[in-house]
């Protein structure tokens, strides 16, 4: 379990990083951020990069703050900007007031283990695109925008354009995910998260993230994201439609959860029959709904 040989580059500036990346992209040159997914896969020789471009010393990539949204017509007035070297551990305490900060803290606590969260990055998780990555679910459900930069210029992708399959994204070999921008939900939004994993810190077998607003006692703008089950995270339109405009109730949550379970098409995986994955989706969606609505959810009461 030893990596193949590679060349190591430690650029100090973003420009230098992009130039280096462009030069080595053709020889399976890769970025290393936290290394917490890349290094194990290199140890097993599943990936064999010719070059690693270490972005940990690049100045300015550790940005983590709220910024006015640059997209016209978006409901959210501002976005949480998460730079490429922001670690999972940065979310151990809420980074924002309002529903999003505490949600991210809760979600982070499910990612791997304490020492891994000290190094692993938010953007690295998105780039790695494990179907069971919590941050990918957050990005997908909350409509994050992903900012890609290369020597050729900048592109900004929506989450559903960004994730393309199991551990695959729209990032080109010479591109760097410089930041993720999550629309900051307004204070009235309620968020709830649930996941199931075999042991604490393991990758989840299913998870759900729910966002909803309550206007005049009815659910508005529901988002129901599910992941860990299909090849990538996604929102479940059928379940959202069932919830939209309705008065929250246990029966309703159960029906919505069942709808979500029926809508997913679980990946074929050894020892994990589809029927079981659907049951997990059902329980995760129901619990996430209950949390969003109940006293342990994040957001307005």
């Amino acid at each position, binding site marked *: *379990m*030893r*990596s*193949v*040989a*590679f*060349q*190591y580059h*430690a650029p100090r500036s973003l420009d230098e990083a992009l130039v280096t990346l462009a030069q080595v992209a053709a020889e399976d040159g890769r970025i*290393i951020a936290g*290394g*917490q997914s890349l*290094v*194990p896969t*290199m*140890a*097993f020789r599943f990936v064999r990069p010719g070059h*690693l471009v*270490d972005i*940990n010393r690049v100045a300015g990539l550790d940005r983590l703050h709220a910024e006015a949204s640059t997209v016209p017509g978006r409901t959210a007035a501002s976005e949480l900007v998460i730079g490429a070297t922001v670690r999972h*551990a940065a979310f151990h305490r809420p980074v924002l007031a309002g529903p999003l900060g505490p949600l991210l803290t809760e979600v982070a*606590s499910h990612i791997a*283990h*304490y*020492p*891994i969260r*000290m*190094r692993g990055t938010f953007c690295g998780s998105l780039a790695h695109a494990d179907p069971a990555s919590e941050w990918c679910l957050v990005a997908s459900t909350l409509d994050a925008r992903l900012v890609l930069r290369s020597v050729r210029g900048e592109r900004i992708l929506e989450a559903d354009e960004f994730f393309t399959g199991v551990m695959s994204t729209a990032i080109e070999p010479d591109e760097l995910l410089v930041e993720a921008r999550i629309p900051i939900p307004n204070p009235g939004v309620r968020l709830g998260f649930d996941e199931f994993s075999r*042991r*604490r*810190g393991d990758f989840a077998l299913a998870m759900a993230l729910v966002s909803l607003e309550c206007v005049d006692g009815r659910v508005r703008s529901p988002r129901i994201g599910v992941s860990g089950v299909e090849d990538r995270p996604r929102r479940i339109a059928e379940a959202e439609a069932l919830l939209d405009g309705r008065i929250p109730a246990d029966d309703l949550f159960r029906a919505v959860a069942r709808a979500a379970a029926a809508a997913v098409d679980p990946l074929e995986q050894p020892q994990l029959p589809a029927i079981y994955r659907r049951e997990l989706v059902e329980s995760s969606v129901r619990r996430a709904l209950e949390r969003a609505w109940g006293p342990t959810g994040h957001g307005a009461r």
Partner: protein
Amino acid sequence: MKHPITLTINGHRHDVEVEPRRTLADVIREECRLTGTHVGCEHGVCGACTVIVDGDPVRACLVFAVQAEGAQIRTVEGLAQGAQLHPLQQAFIDHHALQCGFCTAGFLMLSTALLERPAPPDDVELQEALSSNLCRCTGYKNILLAVRAASKVMHATSEAA
């Protein structure tokens, strides 16, 4: 191609030349000959290789040594002050928190980093954080007892100081 790098481990400077593919665990053990840091899985799951890098506990098998150039690294060999054991080391002995001892360095370094945080972890945080590492011998009960006991000692002395 080898890179000349300087690692500072337990306050001592180590000038070594390493291939980029050698992990920090490899280099601490093989080049710096500090074999107290163990390797149990090489893929980030067991925590036996935990060391403290610039104050944070990290898996030394998931960092390449070249990345640690210039960092302050602490390993189990640096815990005791001469013959005086660190309170965690003493607590591990007193509470029979080790059997084969292979996981011990990892648990000690993880716990050291946790207990040195400005706000020491409460019991829930402690259990969560100690679930990061694997031990195959003890069933964990005594590890938890030892870390709790050391926490009391360390915080009593730090308050007294």
